[in-house]
């Protein structure tokens, strides 16, 4: 449905945000995972017509996104990573305003659309409050409501759950899940669980490059049998990092748990671990770091 080919973007200061990114995104939820600064937002903005890439193409259905931005905007719902609101105006007023700008000019229909979305996003009770007084979760729900106006075929949500408490996050996931499978939804996030919970397809972006893509199940299956875990003391961590391919470590009840990606059991107290999506993510990132440093060494 959405196909991205050889997308490269270099900022005027020389920073290369996207390097030759190619992706095919089918209908349904698509998770784009990546650490902070990986280029996720650059990619999202580029697809949302807010940024012209240095080179590459984006095709949505029959529409060339970069050449005909106005055409894609007509089927686009975009929730930016970080957005503010006009200092005056309630949720209702602003949604109504945006609905007109999205071409919903029939006032009766517009009322239905806006109220429907307010109910759906559970903002109906607070619809007359100034948006500037909304909490972070309410504001994100407002963000998704505005993105849904006009029945978009392509929805881009950029880091929607960052900073939300678990309850708000669940509520938000439910909302996203309701959007359905008939449209393309790209969810960019650095939270693995967001993808694990919602997305049938995903890709991992790091350093401006796609380092891994597929369905979560495929990606986890590919790692099957090569993830090992070990509980160590904090002082041993550096030694283990030096001798093993440690993809992640975290603290558990005062002790350090490390995960290692290796074809065979490294022994020394390691035990097999069933790969999770988190392992997929971390090992992909670890791989890409290794590649980068290797390249740097070679240079």
């Amino acid at each position, binding site marked *: 449905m959405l196909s991205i080919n050889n997308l490269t973007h270099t900022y005027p200061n020389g920073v290369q945000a996207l390097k030759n990114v190619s992706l095919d995104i089918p209908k349904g939820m698509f998770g784009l995972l990546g650490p902070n600064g990986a280029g996720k937002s650059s990619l999202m903005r580029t697809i949302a017509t807010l940024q012209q890439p240095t080179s590459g193409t984006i095709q949505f259905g029959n529409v060339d996104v970069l050449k005909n931005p106005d055409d894609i905007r007509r089927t686009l719902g975009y929730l930016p990573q970080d957005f503010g609101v006009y200092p005056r105006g309630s949720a209702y007023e602003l949604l109504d305003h*945006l609905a007109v700008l999205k071409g919903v000019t029939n006032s009766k229909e517009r009322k239905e659309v806006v109220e429907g979305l307010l109910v759906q996003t559970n903002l109906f009770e607070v619809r007359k409050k100034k948006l500037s007084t909304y909490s972070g979760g309410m504001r994100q729900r407002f*963000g998704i409501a505005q993105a849904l106006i006009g029945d978009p075929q392509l929805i881009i949500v950029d880091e929607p759950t960052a900073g939300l408490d678990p309850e708000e996050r669940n509520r938000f996931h439910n909302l996203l899940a309701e959007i359905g499978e008939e449209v393309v939804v790209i969810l960019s996030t650095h939270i693995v669980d967001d993808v694990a919970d919602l997305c049938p397809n995903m890709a991992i972006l790091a350093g401006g490059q796609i380092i891994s893509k597929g369905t979560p199940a495929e990606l986890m299956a590919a790692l099957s049998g090569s993830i090992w875990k070990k509980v160590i003391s904090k002082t041993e961590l550096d030694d283990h990092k030096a001798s093993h391919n440690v993809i992640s470590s975290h603290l558990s009840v005062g002790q350090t748990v490390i995960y290692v990606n290796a074809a065979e059991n490294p022994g020394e107290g390691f035990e097999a671990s069933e790969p999770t999506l988190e392992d997929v993510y971390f090992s992909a990132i670890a791989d890409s770091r290794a590649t980068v440093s290797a390249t740097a060494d070679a240079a």
Partner: protein
Amino acid sequence: MLRIAAQELRYMLKSPQTVVGFSIFFLLSFFAMISTNVTIGGGGNVDVNSPYAITQTLLVMNVFGVFVVPAFMANAILKDVDHKFDGILFSTPLSKPDYLLGRFFGAFAALVIAMSGTPIGMLIGTFWPNVDPETLGPTNLWHYFYTYVALVVPAMLVVSAIVYAIAVKSRSLMYTYLAAMGLLILYFIGQNLLQAPEYREMKAMADPLVFSTFIEITRYWTAVERNSTLISYDGLLLINRMIWFGITAAIVAASYFMFSFRAPAKLAKERVNKKEAADLARKDQIPLGNKGTPAWNKATSWAQFKLRTGFEVSSVYKSLPFMIIIGFSLFLLLTALINRTLAYGIEAYPVTRLMVQAIQGGLGLALIVVLIFYSADIIWRERSAKFNEIIDALPTPNWVFVVSKLVALAFILASIMMIGIASSIIVQLVNGYSAIEISTYLHRGLFHFVTPFILVAILSAFVQVLSKNRFIGMMIMVLYLISTQVLQVLGFENPLYRFAGNIPTPMSDMNGSGRFIVGDYWIMGYWAAVSVFLLMVTYLLWNRGTLQPLKYRIRHLRAFLSPGMATATAIVFATVVGTGGFVYYNTHILNEFLTTDDLEELQVSYEEKYRQFADLPMPRTIDVKVDIDIYPYRRRVEARSSQILENKTDAEITTVHMVFPPTAEVVDISMEGASLASFDERFNYHIFDLDVPMQPSEKRALKFETLMQQRGFAHARNSVTLVRNGTFINNTEFAPYIGFWPGGMMADRNTRREYDLEPLPRTPKLEDASQYGNNYIRQDSDFVSFETTVSTVASQRVVAPGYLEREWTEGDRRYFSYKMDAPILNFYSYLSAEYEVVREEWNDLLIEVFHHKPHTYNVGRMIEGVKDSVTYFNKAFSPYQHRQVRILEFPAYRTFAQAFPNTIPYSEGIGFIADISGEGAVDMPYYVTAHEMAHQWWAHQVMSANTQGGTMLVETLAQYGALLVMEQKYGKDQIRKFLKFELDSYLSGRATDPEGELPLYKVENQQYIHYRKGSVIMYALKDYLGEDVVNRSLRRLIEMRAFRGDPYAISTDLITIFKEEAPENVRLIEDFFEKITIFDVGATESRVQELADGTFKVSIDVDVSKVYADAEGNETDAMFDIPVDIGVFSKSPAEAGFGSSDVIHLQKHQVNDGTSTIELIVKNRPTFVGIDPYNKLIDRNSNDNLRAVDTVDILASNEASNQSR
């Protein structure tokens, strides 16, 4: 704290505002110094680097400095909040005084460095080669240093502290800026409100920027003082500074205690009402899942456009800063609407023309502030709300955003003017004025005025779209606005390259906007087309999505190649070229494009070429016959004249030169027995060689035909005399001057120096007997016989001096034939307009007032003024020489009244719309009429020679006549008010005279002397010598010199007569006329004691002195030796309603030089005493003459109190 201050200073020095601020102030004062067109402080005998000029420049720049103060002060405190660094910073162990005061002093130090651009720019400017060394005094660094450190820095400190307090409290850059603007507007309002002389001291004490204080202290300083003296910290300045340091300390303390590192949390109010509850119940019935079906057609775009425009407009309306600006502006506006002072404290009726001018003046500033701030605000609204990514990803076309934002801005600007118009109409109605001209309001108050601002708004939007952030854009716009002012004075006058440039479009009730506005609309059309192009570029470069550098966005300009854009561009360019071409055709081809500098060069080359002929003997005009055809709608006048010239010299004349004015084209010319030897078209200079020389007393005929016309429009100096309704021309605009015309030379001595020309004497010396046979109006003729036939369109009347012989109509033209029965000066006028005529026959005198139909207010007073003048002057001076008086209104493009023989053109801008219904108001229409009537004697009977002192016999005596007529009608006590205005104008005028002051009898056409000082002197003279003595002297002068040019009268003729008539007062006459004498009298204390017989003993301590001044103002002490009025009153003579019944005692007393006590016994109980209480003397400080009684001992307790003495 010092560490923080130093850190802040270092930070500020690196930031743009310090560098930019320094550069701006450096350049402003540098260019003000080196430009020959801009002078601040200097001028005349005052050096451009005198302490006075330095102080004035620095203090004026300091007012501009208020604009940059917020950049420093707000930044010092707000940068942490802006960069969201406040959370971290405020949780550090930083102490409050360290933070608040450290930041303040750091930023203030940076501000002091930035503003030091002013003295440095000025100082460096004085070394620039093109500064005239004559205007420079020796360089004295101390003067710069003292002025900057002792006057500017403390004033800045006061402003900075206030602005800083606002920044601390509001924590908003926008509010801080607006508050600073608000303070500035308040400052100007205060300046405006406190304009009357009685508020001057108050204003001097209240001015935080000490500008008024400086003006007040130096008001009557002479050139010598201005060149040598710095203002010192005492008196007004000291009081002012103490007041303001007190206020500043209080503000600083208040803001210190109010500041907290913890920002207050804002709690929203919760409210659920019934309707709300019902609404919530509805929630379940709301259908879900309808996400809307967008429609993509023109109707959608139109709906989006309307929505966005309304949204932008309401966002601005609802913003607090906008309300603040409008509030301030309305205040400013109302002040302007209510104060319509004409002169002598007289207000004008609220005619719509004046109201429109008041709106323009009152709201112009608001439009500029709104334009600069809100164009930035509107353009950057989405980005600063961080809502841009959502908006920019919407399927709304770019044009909707760009156009709606600009339309909203235009709408807002227009609505500000609408508010002004509504307020103005209310003021008119409250004043009971009902002739409200809505069309004038909508045209001149709204459309014509606001359009250029809208064009600038487009420019501002364009600049904002090109800039990286709104502040850079705002800065560029401010620079643009300053440059428009600066470029104009630097001689860049062409409206084709001054964005939204214009040509003057003066207004008049008689002639509306005339044809001036047509030319202006062409220029406006040209700039509108340019603006459309800017709009197209703005549209293409509109930054959608992530802010991209300009070099990336430039790619979008490729869209100009698309057929639609290319066509539109072609149309726009065709319009630009078409309108621009038409403007060029009018300003450069139909009219010669001459800048002020070009005109100066022309004057110089005229002088170079022809001054050599100045002393050739020339014949004089003795007989004038003129036929004039006026075509008011074509702005064209054709003149055909035959004149007779006579050789009045003793020599044979072989060549005759004549210069036609630059306003006339010579169509045909011939002189009897002469052939044209040369004709210089550039200067309209004709030289005739006489075939047979002209012998003494021989007469020759001169015939010529000239044409005056205004072709199309010029960029400046469009004719205000050739108009549709209210043509007003005189013979100096179409008839030649015989011989070299001295008026064609450049007169200003500073400009002359720039061209290395010797200064030109303003007037020949009094002792120059060769000029005694020349009158000061024109030297090529004496009294002439005059007749004229003149025609105009059928709807108008035309009036010229003389008696109407015949009036007839031929086709669609009306003819009038006038003939004067006795010789007149060669000085006559024509006025053609659609007049209403009020006619009154009185004692064989026909009095007529020709006026614009609605201007009936003061016609009766004018007629009364004519009658009273004729009655009084007939008795006091001599019989009136004519059988009629005609007063003729002309458009307010010029504001004066002028006396021609039996004809008085009188501007609609002065007497006709004066509202003198106020209590105690000076009756200006009556006074002006009396003054012009007096000229029928003092100009048209006795004419003075072309020497120094000439205008004393014309203007001073006309003032004298008018004062006497006024005194007859309004009484002695009302004259005080008038004289105080006159005295004040004189004292201020002498300080700014470019060439130095002269005694009255040698006045060189200096208005502040012959009008202002003249009034005071003549009134005092009458008071000391007696009215009979003065009038008898004047009668003798008339007998001696009336209607004669052999010789004309000179000032010493009159002074000799005065001395003969009043031998006991010779010294006084010399003091008044032959010297510059400045008195200073004042009452320092007064006591009243009730005596046993019911009378009162009054003792007044007085201090009197007298000095003689020279031209530059150097003074020498002299002995005060004249008796002076001592007055005792039961009411202050300054109070309204004061009358002769309030005078207990008023007599001349001999008073010794220096301090003394005067004691007298009066019958009634006094409350006020005074020395020279009516301000008859030329008194340096006329405010200390009156004094409320200080101590009173009344009889009931007199025993005790007397003993205690």
